[in-house]
């Protein structure tokens, strides 16, 4: 290691760092239903942490427990060193931006933003100054006298953000912050949100079901399913090194080849896949016994497609037929039929221009698929 490692951007790697939010074996039951099932989670100061999962996975319940709207059935939540279990929402150092924004419809933009400060009994002049500052930051100064129903979706979202940030919370909780916006606005707002987080330095905890949103926004992601964390890691870790088929399929697309380990060497592993019939060479060793049933996940963009057979010594290649082509401009998605019924998906950049109107690879053509020894991920669950 030539240069000293710094933890400034990756506090979770620092063994000395004290987590800002500590969720310790927290469960939440609603009657017979277990929404959150004994989870542990450490979030560090300044992180933009995403809880990602499908509906009913428990991500919102966990967020609501952080806000204080739900009490954990067991376990404890500690924020900045203080146990929050019996602290009501109005005494917690956190604020929340609601999915529906929950703006007070009978109040103006100004009064909505000032609401939190008024509750603290701050002098009017000081409130006015801070409201002004906040409205300037979210570029809503000219809308201060409007009621929420007179604003567009994007403007409402910014009012909600201003209202939840004005009390300078230690943690800002965001429940599907971009779900109600249309696609263009959503992309724009993603970056605005990141800029604002950078500026105010508040720890953000975001709940979302949108994996793209989670990937762009967060420092780390926790993928949730059935009340448990499937994996916690940086966007790259989760995308490139998923630890389960569920995570691999939930974040992006993955082709899954089922097989058995036939050779487990020091620096390589060979997996024999049945369907499609192929031998997969992986360039690192694994602590898995030979003969174990495994799944090899391959991202669509990690597979090369060619008309000539690649020189791979019979490893990491399959022959198939083009079943479908989705032309997306910059890239194309190919669906390749293998052994008659198995479909493998590939995305490939469109580097070459079509000649004489014919694409380089056409429907019903026979093609070879190949990938590098470092491209695949072996999963046991």
């Amino acid at each position: 290691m030539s240069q000293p490692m710094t933890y400034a951007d990756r506090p979770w790697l620092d063994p000395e760092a004290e987590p800002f939010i500590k969720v310790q074996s927290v469960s939440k039951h609603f009657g017979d239903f277990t929404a959150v099932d004994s989870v542990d989670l450490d979030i560090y100061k300044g992180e933009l942490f995403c809880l990602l999962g499908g509906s009913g996975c428990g991500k919102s319940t966990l967020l609501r427990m952080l806000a204080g709207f739900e009490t954990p059935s067991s376990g404890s939540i500690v924020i900045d060193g203080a146990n929050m279990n019996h602290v009501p929402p109005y005494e917690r150092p956190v604020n929340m931006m609601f999915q529906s924004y929950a703006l007070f419809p009978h109040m103006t933009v100004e009064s909505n933003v000032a609401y939190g400060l008024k509750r603290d009994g701050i002098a009017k002049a000081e409130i006015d100054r801070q409201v002004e500052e906040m409205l300037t930051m979210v570029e809503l100064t000219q809308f201060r006298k409007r009621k929420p129903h007179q604003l567009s979706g994007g403007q409402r979202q910014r009012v909600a953000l201003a209202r939840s940030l004005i009390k300078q919370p230690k943690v800002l909780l965001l429940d599907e912050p971009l779900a109600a916006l249309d696609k263009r606005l959503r992309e724009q707002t993603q970056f605005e949100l990141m800029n604002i987080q950078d500026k105010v330095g508040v720890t953000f905890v975001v709940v979302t079901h949108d994996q793209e949103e989670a990937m762009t926004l967060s420092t780390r992601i926790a993928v949730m399913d059935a009340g448990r964390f499937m994996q916690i890691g940086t966007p790259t870790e989760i995308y490139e090194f998923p630890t389960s088929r569920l995570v691999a399929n939930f974040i992006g697309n993955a082709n899954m080849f089922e097989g058995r380990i036939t050779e487990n060497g020091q620096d390589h592993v060979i997996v024999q896949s049945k369907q499609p019939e192929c031998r997969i060479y992986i360039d690192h060793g694994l602590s898995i016994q030979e003969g174990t049933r495994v799944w090899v996940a391959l991202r669509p963009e990690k597979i090369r497609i060619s008309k000539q057979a690649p020189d791979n010594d019979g490893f990491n290649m399959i022959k198939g037929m083009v079943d479908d082509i989705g032309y997306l401009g910059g890239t194309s998605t190919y669906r390749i039929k293998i052994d008659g019924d198995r479909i493998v998906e590939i995305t490939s950049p469109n580097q070459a221009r079509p000649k004489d109107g014919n694409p380089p690879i056409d429907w019903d053509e026979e093609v070879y698929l190949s990938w590098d020894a470092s491209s695949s991920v072996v999963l046991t669950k």
Partner: protein
Amino acid sequence: MSAPAEAMAPALRHRLSLLLQRNWRSLVLFVPFFWLLLFFLAPFFIVLKISFAGSVIASPPFTSMIEWVDEGVMHIRVVTDNYAYLWEDDLYVKTYLNSLKISSISTILCLLIGYPMAYAIVRSSHTTKHILLMLIILPFWTSFLLRVYAWMGLLADQGTINGLLISLGIIDEPLRMLYTEFAVYVGIVYTYVPFMILPLYANMEKLDWALLEAAADLGARPMTTFFTVTLPMTLPGVLAGSLLVFIPATGEYVIPDLLGGGNVLMIGRVLYNEFNANIDWPVASAVAIALLLLLVLPMMLYQHIQGKETENA
């Protein structure tokens, strides 16, 4: 039948159906309007006319407004004495004021009882909610009169409540409850509380509970949340319920008559006395018209709020 007439028939039928199609909306509206015209406005104008007549011992017991003298000369006689009489005799002014006092206090009591009930119903689970709503409506299944008589039995000197209190040794002498203002309040609040709960329920059902969480999240204690968010948001329901209680309670006759006896003066009883005991139809009509005027203002206010609410939704 001539040939051209037969040829006309389909064309006519076609035109008629076109007319119907174009005007079916107005036709649909016409029926209820006609109903109101016939059974509300017409009687109203008759009462209005009688209120400007003089009283005579005859049948009907009032003078006619239009009289024909000699050779087709028409006399129109308008008597305003009845209204002047209402103003001069302080019995009427007192009764009006007492009616307004009783209905105002009853409205506030209904609100104090109904608001938490409506809130609790809205906040309960789906099945409980339906059972509770059912219980609110249940009393309407029995006759209103019967229920008031039941209260007489409960409140009387030898009634259930006094009997129970005496047998428990809490009191020695029966408490005088029946034929007091207290009994009238009990009767009115009991009868009208569903009219408060139902519009409040309808309003609270639409309330976005995330707003209350947002208020708590921003540091508002439960009381502050109630006064800054819940109450302003449910104000249309409060006003609708209050008017639905206040307006009929002001003109209430049965409850003050049966539970208040002769001790509680309310305008409904005075009205009844003028018609039936005194057989003074013109004064009775004037009392009725004055009552109507007294209530038109809150009714218009109610309409205005309703209109505003639909506009916002």
